[in-house]
């Protein structure tokens, strides 16, 4: 009986183990942690590319991409007055050597403008070998981390080969990996030695019970000897002397030191890329069918350009629904699609697939059906405080001109 119980318990534990370490376990590092309305309606990422998959230690990896700052920014999220374009990685397995937003180099935080369009470039240098899921993302002040698309990068080589030389303003070249380390350890060791000497000076004597007894019996004065007092007086003279002497020496060795720098970079948005007005998209109704995991968006599209346009893609929260019927739709490389991209295999179905002619205004019903709504936890939207959908709708004309609309709408759930 007990044996059966043990076996059952064993099987149960194995099952738990399997669930925990299943090969397709979620590589959770915050991609899905924020509420869907924040992931859909704050920073809307697109065209994110990685320059390579397998850098060696010291090689460069360049991430480029674009993002639109949604007009329909959620009420519950503070405005992006201080935001930081970051890279999600398990610690500094890369160092970030350069970062540009709209062509402007930036090392600090920046304010973003609602409705603004931006492009970015992050230059990384591989530091530690391993396989990492790398995303660009935005830290938004008081809101959290809004992830961009992720990509698996495999760094090869040996960690010891990594160097990070930096030239200071006075022309010295230093290695960030070791700069100041020996000096710092030296000073810590020096003060530790002094402290240890002082502690040992006291600890070598009989301590707690005998000293307390002597103190109680009025012999407390004998517990501190004239030599102890002399040493303490010596500490009061020598320690400040060493401290201020070393400070003065440091000052004379490093003449031009500056305080830590902090600035909020001012970065102007690009000329409008999204919602330019040439192709206007208005959402009339959005419905999410819970059992079939299907989002239907009824849009009114007005084509004010002089070319017929076709819907190519709807992207929301890094999940991409592609109109498989649109020409060029299968040129995956052209769209930055690879094994790591979250693409719904059945794509985006459109009730009237014919191109929208120049000047035409048409009601189009878009349906994106896929388990990704659930696995990416975007379906949590319908139980959010702000259950509005947001995303980018991409349209193209025959000459591959692209029109992008940032759309948003309340979502009506169909629970069964």
């Amino acid at each position: 009986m007990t044996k059966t119980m043990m076996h059952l318990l064993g099987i149960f534990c194995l099952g738990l183990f399997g669930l925990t370490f299943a090969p397709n376990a979620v590589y959770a590092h915050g991609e899905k942690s924020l509420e869907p309305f924040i992931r859909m309606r704050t920073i809307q990422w697109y065209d994110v590319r990685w320059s390579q998959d397998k850098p060696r230690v010291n090689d460069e990896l360049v991430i480029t991409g674009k993002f639109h700052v949604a007009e329909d920014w959620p009420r519950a999220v503070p405005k992006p007055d201080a935001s930081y374009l970051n890279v999600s990685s398990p610690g500094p397995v890369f160092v970030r050597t350069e970062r540009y937003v709209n062509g402007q180099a930036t090392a600090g935080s920046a304010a973003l403008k609602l409705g603004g369009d931006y492009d970015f470039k992050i230059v990384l240098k591989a530091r530690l070998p391993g396989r990492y899921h790398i995303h660009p993302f935005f830290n938004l002040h008081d809101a959290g981390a809004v992830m961009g698309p992720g990509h698996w990068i495999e760094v090869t080589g040996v960690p010891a080969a990594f160097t990070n030389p930096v030239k200071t303003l006075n022309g010295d070249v230093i290695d960030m990996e070791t700069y100041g380390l020996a000096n710092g350890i030296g000073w810590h060791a020096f003060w530790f030695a002094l402290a240890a000497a002082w502690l040992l000076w006291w600890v070598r004597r009989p301590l707690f019970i005998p000293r307390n007894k002597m103190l109680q019996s009025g012999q407390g004065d004998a517990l501190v000897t004239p030599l102890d007092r002399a040493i303490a007086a010596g500490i009061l003279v020598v320690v400040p002397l060493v401290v201020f002497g070393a400070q003065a020496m440091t000052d004379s060795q490093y003449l031009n030191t500056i305080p830590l720098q902090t600035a909020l970079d001012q970065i102007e948005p690009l000329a409008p890329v999204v919602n330019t007005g040439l192709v206007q998209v208005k959402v009339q109704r959005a419905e999410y069918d819970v059992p079939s995991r299907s989002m239907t968006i009824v849009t009114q599209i007005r084509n004010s350009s002089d070319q017929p346009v076709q819907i190519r893609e709807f992207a929301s929260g890094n999940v991409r629904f592609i109109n498989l019927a649109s020409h060029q739709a299968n040129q995956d490389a052209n769209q930055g699609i690879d094994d790591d991209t979250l693409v719904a295999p059945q794509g985006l179905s459109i009730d009237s697939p014919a191109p929208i002619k120049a000047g035409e205004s048409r009601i189009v019903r878009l349906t994106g059906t896929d388990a990704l709504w659930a696995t990416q936890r975007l379906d949590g939207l319908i139980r959010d405080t702000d259950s509005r959908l947001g995303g980018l709708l991409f349209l193209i004309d025959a000459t591959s001109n692209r029109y992008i609309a940032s759309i948003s709408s309340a979502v009506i759930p169909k629970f069964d």
Partner: protein
Amino acid sequence: MATKALEVPPQPYTGEKARLTRAYDYLILVLALFLFIGIFHLHMMLTVGDWDFWQDWKDRQWWPLVTPLMMITFPAAVQAVLWSNFRLPMGATLCISCLLIGAWIARYFSYHLWNYFPINEVMPATMLPSALVLDAVLMLTNSVTVTSIVGGMAFALLFYPSNWPIFGMFHVPVEYNGAQLTIADLFGFQYIRASMPEYLRIIERGALRTYGQYATPLSAFCSAFLCTLMYPLWWYMGKAFATTKYVKNI
């Protein structure tokens, strides 16, 4: 001469009694070591936190204000116990040594080995010079009031100069795309920290302004003043808890 210097004052116990009380000493010392490594380090992580963790948080204003103020706490309480009951003037040095042992273990194992940060980016600050002076002042004056005022002030005022030889060289400027940064700032930019965006740093924000562009002395004196208040507060906390009245039913 050397042996004479090392002689200890006459002792109340000899023989087996002396041996047993000495064993008790070691028991307490070992417990105290682990206790202070644990709790003082925890206290430091929760109160000073990022200011001590990262090069690019060690600014000239908030770092020298916050660190001594939070670091004089345990030393004051432990001094209250060790000095009042045993005339042992080593409470501050003991606490700060334990703290630094804990800090170095954490920086090496969890920041460096586990999270890959170079150790020079995450070196802790030292408060040992301050602690030695605090112990010496208490011993020579045998007065909480004088130690609060003189010792507390010295504890805070010595903090920045004693750390400048370690961290000053990280304030050498570098040029980054047309702007100057310190090497410390560059650490923050280069070595990716997903949960520590730049805007979380508190660099000369708030009402504590620089005066005639002297930021650090002002902060240090502000901290010194606050330390003179923090010291007696924690001294009396140490006294209040150094009693057997809570365990008399055992």
